[in-house]
């Protein structure tokens, strides 16, 4: 998977019939795209995820490098997600995860560092997904887009079809809410 080609070059190669280029591209973005979708619509994450990639496959013949590949990919994902919300209506808790099944417990210890830091990070990691679910949909989308796509504010604005200041505002509100949410959860523990 250590292909030196850029995402755009890989997509162009796939457009021209190089199936292996798509596998490299898919390996680079599968996790981030899935997380972006799953944290907003966990119940249908697989369906949305497959739809997005099939749209990429079907749109390959008309692909031209006009922006970063991630911008194009997350625009497709965002639009697909909005279609889903419009069709079914947004749900405050899309996850449907079992609250008893805490994924924090499955984290490997080696990834968590020193004991004191480990405790703080484990606490933050434990609660941040809960706080993320409590965010308004647009703020959650902005936060996830920023975290997973690596796009700038302007690129997120272009991807989601809103102004840059709107994205900036949504992201700032999202971070404030997450901080307050995490502080509140620590206080209750």
């Amino acid at each position, binding site marked *: 998977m250590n292909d030196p080609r850029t995402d755009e070059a890989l997509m162009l190669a796939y457009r021209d019939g190089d199936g292996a280029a798509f596998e490299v591209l898919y390996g680079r973005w599968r996790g981030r795209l899935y997380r972006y979708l799953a944290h907003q619509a966990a119940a249908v994450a*697989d369906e949305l995820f497959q739809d997005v990639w099939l749209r990429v496959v079907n749109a*390959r013949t008309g692909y031209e490098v006009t922006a970063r590949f991630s911008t194009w990919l997350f625009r497709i994902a965002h639009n697909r997600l909005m279609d889903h919300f419009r069709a079914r209506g947004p749900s405050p808790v899309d996850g449907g995860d079992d609250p008893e099944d805490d994924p924090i417990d499955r984290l490997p210890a080696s990834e968590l560092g020193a004991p004191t830091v480990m405790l703080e990070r484990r606490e933050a990691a434990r609660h941040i997904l809960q706080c993320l679910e409590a965010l308004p949909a647009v703020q959650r989308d902005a936060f996830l887009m*920023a975290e997973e796509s690596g796009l700038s504010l302007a690129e997120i604005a272009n991807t989601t079809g809103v102004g840059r200041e709107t994205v900036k505002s949504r992201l700032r509100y999202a971070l404030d809410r997450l901080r307050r949410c995490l502080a509140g959860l620590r206080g209750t523990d």
Partner: protein
Amino acid sequence: MEERDTQLSQAYRDAPHPEPSPALDARILDAARQAVAKPTGRRRSPWFTWAVPLSTAAVVVLGVTLLFEMQRQAPEVLQSPTAMPPAIEMDMTPPVQEASPAEPKVSTAVEEPVTPELARGQSRHAAAPAESTSSAADMTRDERDVAIHEAPPPQPFPAQQATAPVPPPPPPPALPAPEVRSLAKPAPKAAQEMANSAGAPASLAEHAADAMRAPSSPAMAPALGRAPENAGAARIIETPERMVEAIRNFIREGRLDEARKALETLRRTHPGFEVPDELTQQLTQ
């Protein structure tokens, strides 16, 4: 990015996240491989292979058919009286050539050689004079075609045009040369004088005389509603208005008897036509 919180980002990255299942990965990758393995964009269907040759052949066949159809219909269109009115034909005829004093003959009707077709049509009309009153509508298509072909091209009438803004008289019918020459002998004096006063050459003076020689001359017979030998052709190009003009010419020349006869003919042949009052008044005085 300016709006980032490293602690929150770290916490988010440390959080356990769901991953797509291997089965889902396999489905997507299979679909992607099959998409590029399909020869959709490379191989053309038979229709696309033959689209250009078939389209070209269709255009050629259509064009050739259209060309043949236009050639088949072109003579009828050109010779149809509705395609080009006689007056326009007269205006388009170059008068200089006709007015040339170097021309030794009287008119093109005399000049034209008698073609077999012309002779056949003339002999037919000559053999059946009683049928000459039949209208053009009663004629068969072949007869009309022959009549149209027999009618000589309209001749300019510079002498008459110089004296009065009157449309020229109808063209003389095609007749055998000896017959026309014999009719041309007693040329009316008025027409001769009119042509001479306009400075027209002798040939045109005789031409004017031919045209004004009604009703004894077949040349003016169509204008007067008479039944000439080639009534079919004459009726096609004759109108009551032109007959009125011929009557006015008679009155102007003082030939009142001929004008009255022509008026009777006009009323008989065009009963629905409203004769100008001034004509009636002039002829009843």
